[in-house]
């Protein structure tokens, strides 16, 4: 009973937030309501007792992706009026696509649900099990090969983005670290005895 109350509360907040994303006139408000919708969907993951996915959703999407979004909005300084005028022209097409997707979902889930060979019911894991621990064990045993490949893809992304954006000017003056470390302190600082009154 409590589960249902929590579920319906958060999913209604989620739907409102999702509507807010497209209905707010100020793009910053839209971005913030997108953050709200991510957080509420993370709560829905918590309800399924998959706390790892929930935390990752908050960390990656809210912590990294949405901050980037907000930065872009701030830097581009998007004009409010422009955003409004476009919405009206796109709205009928978007509505049409939305209706098509809705119809597809209804046919697949409601009318054809008997045709699926196996229905997989999501079983809540026993509460004693640590979700993150289990995922980690799987990643480092059964799925070690894809996991390592994913690591290399990330390395590739880092290398490409650095090599595409790094610009070194000709004749740029930088420190030579090895020389800096090699310096002898006795040569650097000269201690001079000064007699009082002279000099």
């Amino acid at each position: 009973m409590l589960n249902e109350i929590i579920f319906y509360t958060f999913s209604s907040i989620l739907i409102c937030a999702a509507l807010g994303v497209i209905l707010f006139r100020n793009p910053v408000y839209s971005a913030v309501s997108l953050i709200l919708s991510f957080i509420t969907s993370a709560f829905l993951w918590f309800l399924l007792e998959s706390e790892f996915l929930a935390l990752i959703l908050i960390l990656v999407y809210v912590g990294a992706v949405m901050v980037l979004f907000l930065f872009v909005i701030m830097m581009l300084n998007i004009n409010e009026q422009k955003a409004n005028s476009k919405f009206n022209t796109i709205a009928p097409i978007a509505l049409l696509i939305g209706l098509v997707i809705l119809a597809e979902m209804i046919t697949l889930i409601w009318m054809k649900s008997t045709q699926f060979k196996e229905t997989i019911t999501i079983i809540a894991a026993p509460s004693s099990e640590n979700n993150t621990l289990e995922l980690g064990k799987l990643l480092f045993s059964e799925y070690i090969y894809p996991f390592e490949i994913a690591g290399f893809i990330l390395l590739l992304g880092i290398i490409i983005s650095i090599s595409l954006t790094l610009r070194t000017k000709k004749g740029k003056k930088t420190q030579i670290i090895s020389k800096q470390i090699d310096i002898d302190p006795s040569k650097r600082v000269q201690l001079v005895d000064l007699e009082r009154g002279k000099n």
Partner: protein
Amino acid sequence: MNITELKYLAPEIIIASGICVLVLIKSFHRLRSINLLSVLIGTLTPLIALLSMVFIFNNPYEIILNGQVVIDTLGSGLKITAYGLCALIVLATNINQINNKSELILIELFALLGISILCSASNLLVIYLGLETLALSLYGLVASNRKSVKSSEAAMKYFVLGSIASGLFLYGISLIYGLYGSINILDFNNLSVDTSIELQIAIGFIICGIVFKFGAFPFHSWVPDSYQGSTNSVALFISTVPKIGAFALLYRLLIDSFYSLSSLWSSFLLVIGIASLIYGNIVALSQNQIRRLLGYSAIGHIGFILIAISAINQTAIESSLLYLLIYVIMTLATFIALELLSSENKSIDTINDLKGLNNSHPWVALMLLFCMFSMIGIPPFIGFYAKWIVLSTLLKMDMIYTAIIAIIITVIAAYYYLRIVWYMYFEKSDIPLMKDTSTIIQKSLFFTIGSSLLLLGLIPETLISLIGRLFNQIY
């Protein structure tokens, strides 16, 4: 996972460690000999990986890592080809300021890693990861010529289209997971012919992903742009090695897993093949930019390969692989010629740059003539056998109309290849070609590959029997 299974992953591990070593060495960017060192590692890594294949090659069939990786002779053969090609390309690439700065060799090794993952993947997740490794490194390669606006534009287009294709491919995978509850492609071997609409849509999406990687008709638009936008060194790589990865992808997904549904996907491939054959060759007629022309001609050649696969039986798949290998050799020789002739200041871009090549570089002109004749399919050259085998397979399978279309288009295509020959031999150049700065290794490589077009054409049985051996142990 068993620790002894790791020996089957030896080539991948070697390439991955080569990449790590190269990354570490690149950090000493003040080192004087860094250029030479990176070429050395870029050549040695694929060669060592190739040597390590010797121990694996004798194992006929092995499924390791809980069915995520499959080791068979075809995958190993494709890997060996890719490694050899990559080593050749690294050796043949000009070493100059642009190529050194952009970490070209490093990204090429990443692409090789992706191909080698694709060649032996037997799990949709691993296939997707291999595909992404390959695709990401290709985006990086195309964008690597930062000074040119064309290059950035081509890379942007390629990136957007590639993301859409990956999205479609992933959607297909997710539909298949939804239908069968498995991502292991060996589970799909014994599917009964099931014509449910969901499965058709899923296979359609997966074919979209494959066709994009090949660069065939409906998803072709990135090919000419990215060839034109990139430098000759990059075009040399992206026109050859990724095609092997694309073939591996097609083989693993359609023939290895959904073979029982071949009636579903073969007609898709036939239509796509004919369309790209016609489109690529017709549009190439009016091109003046030489890499763009070769890009359109690549679309036409890919059409041949797809048509050959669509006549599903063993000889058809063999002939398509043969066509692919011969196409790769021809393209390699052509692009190495362009790479040889261009120096840091002057790069060969349009057909006009080839005017009077016979006077300044008679031997390079002769080898380019070999390449062009081989691409047309004139008898003593190896390109003739490629076309002949595909056409004879089509005739055996009673696909006469397809064969007729292919022959007519081949005759039309001869025009633009012969035009290049005309420019090289019978046109006077306005500006004499610069003295090239190529090394002796590049020259000797080029003449070996160029003359092999003729030599292999005289003894085509060796190549044909080699490919036959790859398939013998499968069927």
